[in-house]
């Protein structure tokens, strides 16, 4: 009996000691981690909103962002507006193998895509993840999102609503297509109401 009590007490004491250490470390690093994430989001928002900035000059990124992008919110929902009234917002939803998060930008008339970026994913490296490369996502620029955007895994996109997918990334392509359509439909009423 005594042995068991010692066991429990030992683990409890060690556990609380280590937890305290972690809390201290967390206190130091949390603001820095948050700032890093914010910067990453700002960089990506500026990329899809077509705002030129100097990626090498760390200090100017935040300044360029605040000068060119207006951050607006409506309830819990935050969106971003560039000087020529293009709108960008964060998106999140299921991918083929895990959650996808990113941001998309649409033109001021809610008709066309301005840009798409994916910030985190769990897709297959080398196959699904190729869809999230900047070079590929450029194809989405100027495409019509009304009534729906289509990602064709076999290629051969003709109309303004269609984008070529990538062979070997069919499921991820479908996931991306659904994510864009779903998020667009969710966000449009919120923003147009507040405009």
């Amino acid at each position: 009996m005594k042995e068991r009590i010692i066991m429990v007490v030992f683990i409890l004491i060690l556990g609380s000691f280590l937890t305290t250490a972690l809390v201290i470390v967390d206190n130091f690093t949390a603001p820095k981690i948050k700032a890093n994430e914010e910067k990453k989001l700002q960089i990506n928002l500026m990329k899809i909103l077509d705002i030129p900035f100097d990626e090498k000059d760390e200090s100017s990124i935040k300044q360029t962002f605040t000068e060119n992008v207006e951050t607006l919110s409506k309830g819990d929902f935050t969106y971003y507006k560039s000087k020529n009234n293009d709108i960008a917002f964060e998106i999140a939803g299921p991918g083929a193998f895990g959650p996808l998060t990113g941001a998309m930008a649409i033109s001021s008339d809610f008709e066309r895509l301005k840009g798409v970026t994916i910030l985190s994913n769990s897709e297959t490296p080398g196959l699904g993840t190729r869809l999230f490369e900047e070079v590929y996502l450029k194809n989405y620029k100027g495409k019509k999102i009304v009534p729906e955007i289509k990602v064709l895994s076999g290629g051969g996109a003709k109309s303004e609503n269609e984008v070529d997918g990538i062979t070997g990334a069919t499921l991820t392509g479908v996931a991306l297509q659904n994510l864009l359509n779903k998020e667009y439909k969710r966000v449009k009423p919120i923003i147009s109401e507040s405009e």
Partner: protein
Amino acid sequence: MSLKTIVGAKGYKVLKNGIWSDHPVCSTTLGICSALAITNKIENAIAMSAGVIFVLLLTSLLISTLRKLIPSRVRIITYMIVIATCVTIVDKFLKAYFPPLSEAMGPYIPLIITNCIIMGRAEAFFVQNNTYHSILDAIANGLAYSYSLLAVAVVREFLGFGSVLGFTVTPAGWENWVLMALPCGAFFVLGIVLWIIRTLANIELPGAKG
């Protein structure tokens, strides 16, 4: 003054065993998972090695200091919570100060928790030896892990990306050997590294005669 007189006879043996004759990666094939996964770039290998060395040092310090207090029935749980704490510290530190590196390493930093070298050394050495020798053992095993990782990473980055530490070193007509950048390349290179070190260190495996 030789290394032997500085660290003492036992300390010297501990170092030699860890770094060479009882090499954690090459002799006992521990820590293979991360050695295969993150060795496509030298930068990643360095970050991973630094993380593992840090976690090994902190774990050896804590476990060997507490070794007389740890109830033997819960010793594995003790290792786990100590290792998990150290790894979380490394993960937070990288996320805060080296975000691109942390992104490149992905889930492999949190997975240091399951690196068998740390668990293995805790059970086989730290819990039975004094703090001084445990720290020497941690350094030795950490270094052994690091140089085998670096050996694999140098070959893979050179062949797979045509660069060393991110600097292109190959001539203009160089064709990257993509296989080396992919996970399967790691199997080939690690296998060869294992072979070379085992032969040089004269490591004999039980049941592998003839």
